[in-house]
């Protein structure tokens, strides 16, 4: 018993802030739901502007950024008090974005205007606008922060934008309606999901950042029509051994082996599963289920759904903090 207590105490020391939180944007409810990631209880639901979709936090975990798509700006909230802070300019119809590790620059996909907008989070000014393909959505960043990858849903490309000069250096054609781009933590691979194409394109990334398409991962579930297998959100475990892919109206998350790039397993979730995020300790994966208005909590080690938590109307994005 003593030993057990000691172990707990040590664990507590190693990870001081235990009361983690997940923030979920509710696209139709115009709110953000806050969920305690230990008890899985809803702590709060607060107004987040019109049509909140993409959501992320500053690297220090203090500021919550929300793409308020119909307000044409990024709303900022304090992650402790939920108090709204001054907004950031985003360009029209921001949908998804990614923040660089320093927290300084935010790269935002402007769905209606075929642009990626670069916003300085400190001066709250727009640094650059990068013209990309039609209906930009997915935003990924290489771990060394040298590249931002944007996917354009109607052009069907992954655009590789250099963060040095904001110029597109590579374009890779992928399958229909690319929604999300995710690098591995070591930066050697990139995954791009294609919702209507029904595939995840896998690219090897060279040291200079150049991509080479090596494979397209397909999906198959007995009893589910192939057209319902629509890959959207993608997350990779830190060691790169497993890739989790949300499959939209198939109501499942696929678990893909990082070595063989074959699907190992499908985990049932709520309805129309789109975006994903790990808890900071990588123990749990959370999914947003837009049609059942809940999030599914998946135990990452066991690859099992352990709980669902009711949130607001039409949950879209999710981010977690410690």
């Amino acid at each position: 018993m003593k030993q057990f207590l000691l172990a707990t105490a040590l664990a507590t020391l190693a990870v001081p802030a235990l009361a983690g939180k997940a923030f979920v944007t509710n696209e139709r409810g115009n709110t953000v739901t806050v969920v305690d990631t230990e008890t899985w209880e809803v702590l709060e639901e607060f107004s987040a502007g019109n049509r909140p979709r993409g959501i992320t936090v500053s690297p220090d975990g203090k500021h919550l950024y929300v793409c308020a798509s119909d307000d044409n700006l990024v709303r900022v909230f304090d992650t402790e008090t939920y108090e709204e802070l001054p907004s950031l300019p985003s360009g029209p119809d921001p949908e998804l974005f990614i923040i660089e590790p320093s927290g300084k620059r935010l790269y935002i996909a402007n769905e209606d205007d075929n642009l990626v907008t670069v916003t300085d989070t400190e001066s709250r000014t727009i640094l650059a606008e990068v013209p990309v393909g039609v209906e930009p959505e997915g935003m990924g960043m290489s771990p060394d922060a040298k590249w931002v990858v944007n996917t354009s849903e109607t052009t069907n490309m992954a655009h590789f934008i250099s963060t040095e000069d904001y110029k597109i250096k590579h374009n890779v054609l992928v399958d229909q309606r690319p929604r999300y781009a995710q690098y591995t933590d070591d930066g050697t691979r990139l995954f791009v999901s294609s919702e209507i194409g029904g595939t995840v394109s896998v690219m090897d990334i060279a040291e200079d950042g150049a991509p080479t398409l090596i494979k397209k991962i397909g999906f198959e579930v007995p009893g589910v029509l192939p057209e319902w297998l629509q890959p959207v959100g993608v997350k990779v475990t830190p060691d790169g051994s497993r890739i989790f892919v949300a499959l939209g109206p198939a109501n499942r998350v696929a678990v893909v082996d990082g070595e063989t790039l074959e699907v190992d397993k499908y985990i049932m979730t709520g309805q129309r599963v789109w975006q994903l995020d790990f808890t900071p300790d990588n123990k749990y994966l959370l999914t947003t289920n837009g049609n059942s208005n809940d999030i599914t909590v998946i135990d990452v080690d066991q690859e099992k759904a352990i709980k669902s938590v009711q949130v607001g109307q039409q949950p879209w994005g999710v981010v977690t903090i410690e």
Partner: protein
Amino acid sequence: MIRMCAPLLAAGLYCMSALQAAAVEVEAAVLRIDYQRLLPISRYDLKAEDLGFAGAALADEDNNTTGSFLGHTFETQTVATAPDGADAAMDALLADGVKLIVVMAEAEDLLRLTKKAAAQDAIVFNATAPDTSLRDQGCNANLLHIAPSNQMKTDAVAQFAKWKQWDRWFLIYGSNPADLALAESYRRSARKFGADIAEDRMFEDPGGARRTDSGHVMVQRQLPLDTQGASRHDVVIAADATDYFARYLSYNLWDPRPVMGSGGLRPVSFHGAHEAWGATQFQTRFEALTRRYVQPEDYNVWLALRVVGEAVTRASTNDPQALRDYVLSDAFELAAFKGQAVTFRPWNGQLRQPIILYDGMITVSVSPQDGFLHQVTSLDTLGLDEPESACTAFQ
């Protein structure tokens, strides 16, 4: 990677990375025949001046944005003509060297214009003619159908009725040839999906003015009498391709029943309130460009030119026959804001697509319905299937 790609490109496949494709210029056209027509029953159905052309403008924007990364440019001219000027207009386009032509015309004119185009190896995209015969014995290897056929639309309605278990139909059809053809299509759909046409009545076209100040008074008195005494039925199916009575049926029937078909719940390729599957983005882009809501004709023209754009992106050519071969191949698929990729039936050139059931305000449902299965794709439960089709031009 570039070196690895070169042989693939030569084989007509697309190259993946760091693509430095050769410049490709794509010239297309939309040819619209404006027919003399009576006013529609509803003002909402008045035809916009730029009907169809607006879809072309948006498609050019979309295709040029994508093309800017590949060195491809797209330019589409639009031509509106009276029926007697259509042949000359087609001749002029062909003389200009335009080989990708979207046509908005009735079946007979479409076929005649297609023959002219085919003689010059041009490809015609049918954006509006719904006649099932054009996909059947009347098919042409140089004619690709973007517009859904009557049979696809009536099957979409029939599947929904079946799903609702509205198995007993009261079919009310008009007296013009297009109405009779549509009624025949509903009869085939009923047979195909096991519905029973419990009652079958023609609503004679009285001709003349359709909208007058007191029109609704007459309608309210007359229609209940016209629909009285019908055998027991679950739903009224209206076949009114010429738009003179179906819109009046709801609320004016003797038996209170839902209406589907040409009135009530209608099968459409697209509408201005459709939001699912990312369609909101299409709507906002279309409205920003045109300052009006999209009509199915606009969407069909947009889709025709997006088919061209997607084929040019992947095949890196503007050769019309190479583009045709690509879009008819298994490699082709296109996202069209309808929840699944659209593809072509290689045996008759019809674009496979879900059909939206629209009540005038919202998407009520989308066919194919759950549970209607097919060995190729559930989309082939809508419309003529290969074994039923007499089309041989694609063999």
